[in-house]
């Protein structure tokens, strides 16, 4: 036991004395949360658009005013000809152009239909999609208001409710994602590096030729990073609740428990990588390419897994972060309890046992 404690103490010294790395390990989650929470967002706001109004009547003026009033659009210019539209797009000054034909209001009143042309810059299809949707919905809104006054038959009113996240805050998506990313990065990469570092320094040789059992070496290396992860989880949750106003709707202890479970999975992965890597560079590389990248892409955090082709959906099942991400969303945002997420929890627990066993088994008791 004394051996184990002495080893853990030594590991803490290493981490504590490498101030630069420690700063990154503890500061990174904070920085990420803030950046994701505030600066980065999938939502488009204040997009500059242009309006080409051939009618300039009450309806078009009213509609234009509505568009401008919305938080999504900012009417940059009123254009006077088609040619100008081309020019504005090419110069990247606008992302969307609205064209009203002549006699807009008259057509609406007398023929019960009028046309509006929406031209979007689809060089960035995602943005174009969103902007056209916003524009269309604002136009429909206007349409509904004026038809209301005329009471047409067979209208279907749709009422939308956004459950769990009525304000559609992006942060609700990002916080669980950031938690998964941070824990994975810190635990996997750092544990992988720390063992390989001993190999490179030559101290592993001395440790092997000693009574210390290899399994204890492996475990002792993991303990400090477990603690570091708990600190990270705490800071992320604190920031999310108090700064980003993302609530914790579910049981806090359950959330922490699941996070620790995921941490253990990541630690085991890191230890597994280290048994195969010969240099710190290799360890880092494997951690980043084989783990981090798939996690970002296949966990459902950035891109929905449901949209992916079948082979990738199958692969995403072995990405631990996918399960953790889904668990966190469920517990934190939806507020459910263990009875719903028991399956995912079991999967994570199984992964942990598997990786840890593999890591210990593969730990080489000799140099070659």
């Amino acid at each position, binding site marked *: 036991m*004394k051996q184990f404690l002495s080893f853990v103490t*030594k590991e803490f010294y*290493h981490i504590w004395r490498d101030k630069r790395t420690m700063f990154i390990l503890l500061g990174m989650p904070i920085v990420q949360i803030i950046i994701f929470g505030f600066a980065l967002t999938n939502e488009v706001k204040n997009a500059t658009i242009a309006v080409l109004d051939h009618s300039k009547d009450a309806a078009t003026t009213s509609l234009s005013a509505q568009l401008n009033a919305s938080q999504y659009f900012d009417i940059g210019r009123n254009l006077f000809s088609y040619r100008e539209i081309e020019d504005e797009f090419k110069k990247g000054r606008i992302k969307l152009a609205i064209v009203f034909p002549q006699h807009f209001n008259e057509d609406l009143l007398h023929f019960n239909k009028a046309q509006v042309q929406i031209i979007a810059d689809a060089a960035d299809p995602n943005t174009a999609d969103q902007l056209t949707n916003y524009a269309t919905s604002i136009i429909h809104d206007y349409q509904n208001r004026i038809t209301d006054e005329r009471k047409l038959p067979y209208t279907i009113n749709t009422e939308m409710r956004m459950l769990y996240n009525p304000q559609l805050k992006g942060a609700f998506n990002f916080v669980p994602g950031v938690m998964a990313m941070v824990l994975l990065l810190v635990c996997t990469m750092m544990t992988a590096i720390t063992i390989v570092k001993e190999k490179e320094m*030559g101290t592993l*040789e001395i440790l*092997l030729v000693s009574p*210390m059992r290899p399994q204890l070496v492996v475990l002792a290396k993991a303990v400090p990073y477990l603690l570091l992860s708990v600190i990270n989880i705490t800071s992320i949750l604190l920031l999310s609740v108090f700064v980003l106003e993302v609530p914790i709707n579910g049981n806090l202890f359950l959330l922490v428990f699941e996070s620790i479970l995921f941490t253990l999975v990541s630690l085991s992965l890191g230890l597994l990588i280290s048994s195969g890597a010969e240099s710190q560079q290799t360890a880092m590389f494997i951690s980043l390419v084989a783990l981090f990248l798939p996690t970002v892409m296949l966990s459902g955090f950035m891109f929905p897994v449901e949209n992916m082709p079948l082979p990738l959906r199958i692969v995403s099942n072995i990405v631990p972060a996918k399960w953790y991400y889904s668990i966190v969303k469920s517990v934190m945002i939806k507020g459910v309890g263990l009875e719903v997420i028991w399956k995912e929890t079991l999967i994570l627990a199984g992964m942990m046992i598997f990786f840890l066993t593999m890591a210990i088994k593969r730990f080489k*008791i*000799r140099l070659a």
Partner: protein
Amino acid sequence: MPRKHEKARIYCRIELHNDEGCDARDDDESTVADNKIKITGQMNAVVVENIIKTYGKKKEAVALSDISFSVSQGELFGIIGPDGAGKTSLFRILTTLLLADSGRATVEGFDVVKDYKIIRNRVGYMPGKFSLYPDLSVEENLDFFATIFNTTIKDNYDLIKDIYAQIEPFKDRKAGKLSGGMKQKLALSCALIHRPSVLFLDEPTTGVDAVSRKEFWEMLKRLKDQGLTILVSTPYMDEAGLCDRVALIQAGRILSIDTPQGVVKGFSKPLWAVKSDRMLSLLHELRQKDFVENVYPFGEFHHVVIKEERGEGQLRQVIEGRKSENAVGGMVQPDIEDCFIALMKN
């Protein structure tokens, strides 16, 4: 001609008698204390038999090629050879860190393959490049290794006292900031802290200044006097003279094993040292002479290995012929390096 190497004549299987009885396989919970059984009688501390080690998928690189030797208890045994000779591979096999391709080896009677756990509890090992933790202090390093070996600095302080005393004033300094000589002393202390009976030191004097090197060997002699068996590897030929016995190793083969004096005695041909004001031309001339077996620079002089006694007269003539350039020469005793060169030539 390589001499016949001594094979282990006495090979004892140790019977350990203590209260619990000792199962060589299941040694996990044993402490150093349990293993400190008094071993009496003539006994070889290390036995190596026909060890072969290769590297590479097709086994192209031969690191050790049929190595055999033995080391008696309490011996200071030197393994002398240049880089790439196989010294580190040999040490790693003996400390159970590498598996040989074939052959056997035992340390204090325990097999390096089957009984590796026991050996790892008993030996002290100092790998090349003094593997210490650079960001831990001197004291922290020593403390750590002591605890890993289930002991404390206090328990075995007497053993490392005169070594550690020299670096104790710096005990709070980070190991990475020590000079080469001090790192060496710290690494040695860490290897001794659990009172091993056999010490393996892999190139402990490489990269260390000349003064520290001398001091280090003096420390080793004192340790030997306390009963430790010490195996040291070094590329420095002059350090061979400080050992009880040496094995000269080159390209995976043992060229000779004997006491330093014995190796020198094995040098069968007459050896002369000559010099003049025009060393280069002297060297060229001697190379052409057929009474010369070998001639090579050796510091201030050139060493000339003469084929047979008759050649001495001919050499004298050459020296006479160069009187104008202050040529002088005379017979000298060969040293280990001369022997190494001669053995390499064969």
